[in-house]
């Protein structure tokens, strides 16, 4: 059984999806989705444990020997990302049951769960596979289901947001498949480990460099790096609350993983940083994203949109860590993948609670909620503190490594910008706090009491994780550091 864990990681949600679509019962579908999500977490955790103790796991699909057949290859990097994705799925899935009943048409709910499970399957597949074309296939699975999920938002603008995401996502995926095609032309292989061996011989060819360009732009589009982020704010703002919480904490993280996997494992750190000067291309974009998108977030009035822009800024932090081209920088990136998933998950879920009760997340509509929904707003405040990077939360741990990385390179101004941007984050979190705690409640007396516990328990689970991993950061930092070392040194044995 345990030898099949890598493939089970994908197969469980993949099989659960059609079951949900076929049984046509909202409650049963919900239970299946929750159980499947928890199963993926159990599998991911046991994979991470195996990889930590025994090293790389290679699984040949259908017993076709790689590089001919498709290989699922789990090392500490993707085991880590698998844990991130499945952790968020496990927290969001039980939350969905109540939230989705409120926001999605009843007859569509089983289909909603099918789309959710397919999206989860796609994200896990991208992460677990060791075959570049397989990456593209899973990318399409996750993207197509994501478009469907976003389009199920309550407002009609969800449709246009989903459509624009579809156009942009397809452009990105096309770029990626063009890049993969060019690589195949040059090497005749689609296996990642194989490509890593074959590519250095053809480093000088223009085809490889063009492939690198297409892949780079494609990934940056999927991970919403400034200025290719334009699809993201509306998609997150208009999607159903549970979908936003899930996508914001997983989809862009997996895109960052793809970028790291392709550019550091396949092309190799010497090629990316030495020949292609990836660090110098990414650094300015990351810095602009951090500062400019935080500023935009300050002026937003829709809190979901505010958090979406904040996500673009936070992606800037992840890319910034990569642009340091060092183990410390990558440790910061990998830690922030996990930490940001925890904080944004908690924040968007808190906003979902607000939507459930008062039907809006406009900042004026949230006036006085601190008294009426104390647990929800306390969760938001703690998540917000984590976003700002206050000590004893995970946000501080990420910032710590990021600044260490900047100092290691001797880039003082970058360290200062990171700290100043924390103050910007404080400002936009504060605007919500100000509305919720310092303005009187203006709505009807009957509406806007505390959210049900079925929403609060998953939200607080993530808030608790924010605090726990902020205080006890040793374990996560160790894993992230080992993963960063694997990425910098190239493929393991």
């Amino acid at each position: 059984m345990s030898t099949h864990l890598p493939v089970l990681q994908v197969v469980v949600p993949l099989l659960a999806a059609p079951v949900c679509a076929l049984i046509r019962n909202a409650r049963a579908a919900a239970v299946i989705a929750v159980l499947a999500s928890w199963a993926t977490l159990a599998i991911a955790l046991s994979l991470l444990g195996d990889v930590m103790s025994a090293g790389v796991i290679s699984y040949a699909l259908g017993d076709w020997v790689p590089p001919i057949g498709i290989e699922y290859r789990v090392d500490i990097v993707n085991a880590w990302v698998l844990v991130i994705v499945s952790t968020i799925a496990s927290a969001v899935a039980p939350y969905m049951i109540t939230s989705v009943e409120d926001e999605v048409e009843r007859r569509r709910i089983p289909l909603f769960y099918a789309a959710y499970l397919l999206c989860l399957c796609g994200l896990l597949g991208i992460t677990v596979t060791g075959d570049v074309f397989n990456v593209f296939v899973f990318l399409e699975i996750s993207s197509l289901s994501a478009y469907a999920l976003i389009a199920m938002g309550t407002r009609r603008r969800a449709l246009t947001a989903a459509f624009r995401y579809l156009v942009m996502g397809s452009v990105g995926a096309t770029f990626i498949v063009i890049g993969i095609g060019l690589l195949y032309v040059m090497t005749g292989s689609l296996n990642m480990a194989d490509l890593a061996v074959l590519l250095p011989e053809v480093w000088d060819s223009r085809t490889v460099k063009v492939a690198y360009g297409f892949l780079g732009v494609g990934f940056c589009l999927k991970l919403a790096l400034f200025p290719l982020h334009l699809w993201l704010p509306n998609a997150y703002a208009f999607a159903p609350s549970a979908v936003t919480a899930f996508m914001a904490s997983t989809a862009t993280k997996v895109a960052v993983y793809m970028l790291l996997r392709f550019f550091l494992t396949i092309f190799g750190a010497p090629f990316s940083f030495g020949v292609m000067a990836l660090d110098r291309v990414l650094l300015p974009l990351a810095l602009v994203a951090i500062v400019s998108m935080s500023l935009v977030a300050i002026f937003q009035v829709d809190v979901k949109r505010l958090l979406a822009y904040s996500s673009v800024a936070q992606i800037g932090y992840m890319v910034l860590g990569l642009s340091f081209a060092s183990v410390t920088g990558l440790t910061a990136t990998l830690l922030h993948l996990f930490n940001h998933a925890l904080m944004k998950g908690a924040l968007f879920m808190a906003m979902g609670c607000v939507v459930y009760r008062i039907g809006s997340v406009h900042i004026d509509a949230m006036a006085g909620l601190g008294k009426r929904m104390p647990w929800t707003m306390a969760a938001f405040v703690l998540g917000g503190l984590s976003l700002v990077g206050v000590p004893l939360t995970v946000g501080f741990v990420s910032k710590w490594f990021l600044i260490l990385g900047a100092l290691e390179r001797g880039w003082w101004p970058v360290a200062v910008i990171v700290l100043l941007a924390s103050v910007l984050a404080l400002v936009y979190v504060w605007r919500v706090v100000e509305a919720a705690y310092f303005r009187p409640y203006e709505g009807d007396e009957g509406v806007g009491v505390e959210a049900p516990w079925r929403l609060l328990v998953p939200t607080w689970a993530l808030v608790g994780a924010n605090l726990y991993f902020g205080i006890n950061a040793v374990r996560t930092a160790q894993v992230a550091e080992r993963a960063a070392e694997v990425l910098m040194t190239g493929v393991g044995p």
Partner: protein
Amino acid sequence: MSSVPPFLIFLAGALVVPFLRGMPVVRAAWLLMIPIVGALNVMGIQEGYQLQFEFLGYTLTPVRADRLSLLFGYLFHLGAFISIVYSLHLKDGDRPTLQHTSAVVYAGSALGAVFAGDFITLFVFWELLAVSSVFLIWARRSPRAVRSGLRYLLVHVVSGVTLLAGAMVHAHQTGSLEFGLMELEGLAAWLIFLAFGVKAAFPLLHSWLIDAYPEATPTGTVFLCAFTTKVAVYALARGFAGTDILIYVGAVMACFPIFYAVIENDLRRTLGYSMINQIGFMVCGIGVGTHLAINGAVSHAFNDVLFKGLLFMAMGAVMHMTGKTKASELGGLYKTMPKTAILCIVGALSISAVPLFNAFVSKSMIMSALLYEHHYWIWPVMLFASAGVVEHAGIKIPYFAFFAHDSGIRTREPPGNMLVAMGIAAAACLAIGIWPDLLYGILPHGGEAAEYEPYTYTHILTQIQLLCFAIGAVAAFHLWKIYPAEIPSVNLDADWVYRRAAVKVTRWTGAVVSGVDRAFRGTVLKTVDRTLRGAFRAHGPKGILARTWPAGSMVLWVSILLAAFLFLQFF
């Protein structure tokens, strides 16, 4: 007896306070228990006691006890006890739960900061100080208090971030996070210095204090005056003792507030300026850096909590009973508040450094240290500042509140707990003044430096001369200011011209200083404003960066990026 970290008792105590709503007696008992239990705990802590653990490869020291931190530990327990007694009367309309909880957290974070042995712990408590104390300002609930609280919070959060930035650079350079003596060299030290400077209200960084302290609740101001700036003084004494620039910074701090304090009408704001002036003496002593000077600076901080607290308490009592703090609206209160008036006069005599009162035994140490280290130019400046203290704090405060023209206000003595708190502070002022060894015994530098003798003939003579001169000058000053109608009828003799000229010079200097200051702040504010407006144009809801773009232009960006990338690769 084994001890727990001092801040834990306060933080744990604060957790219980919200559950005592509606039980005033139980709450009062609980609140008083906290500093008492804390004090017993601190007495049990041995010098050299440390608590350490590893975090991300660095050694953190949440508790480090040596003579310096223990002295501030005792001081903060005393300050917390007095302030809590003073605030026991709070009724439901004053938001007692919010005020008490945040005050206890605030006192606990001040303790955490002075016992912090590393920069990360210091940073955590540095920010907690700001966050907990701002509620003491907001509890007043006026729109003005809310706004000035926000500004206060912003300044202190930025100070904390600056501290963290400095600490990280420091950790990167030295590989250690230990908070010890530093040279003022390089980015790390300057960032940390700046962060301390903001909290210590260095000139040009001071406006938060004047802005926020008078806006706090009457009881909140007493807490505020005990902790925030004293933590900064502690941090400077720990990190930058003997840094020359501090002598000059301290001298400026001791002098410039005098001009403002003289022309200020709000008595609590006058005390705010007076506070900066007193911190100036401490900062100056820290800059001198000899054992005697550090002892002087630290003991002056100790005394300042007592006498400045006493004056703020007296003004708070006046405000509590009459709702007024403006000099022009008060006066003649000695008839109905005689006890408060007497206690206020004790505070005024203390701050004026009259022999047998506590400031005398600490300030003279700083002044002597200046002379021993041959700072002959700074010494007269500080002497001038001392004379200024007598004017604006020693005479102006009690005079305008309790005497002067009778405002016609008839009120009663404040609640008993306020009188008790003021009584404790007044008794402590006198006790330290009469038996200075009480304080000298716990000073950080023992041995020869601790055997300082304040009551020598020269010290007493100098101080009494200074007091007489200052009182004489003030009397003349007031004579002219209070009865302007009589001026024309006074004969034009040389004496009168001299007095009038002196007054004019004082006024003129005050106007110039405040003019320059206003122009400077105006320019800064305008620049900030313009930058904000520019940022809003680009980033606001309709700004170019926040608009919802059609898919076509998004794809345009994709192609631009790809083209740029390919272009760079081929040329």
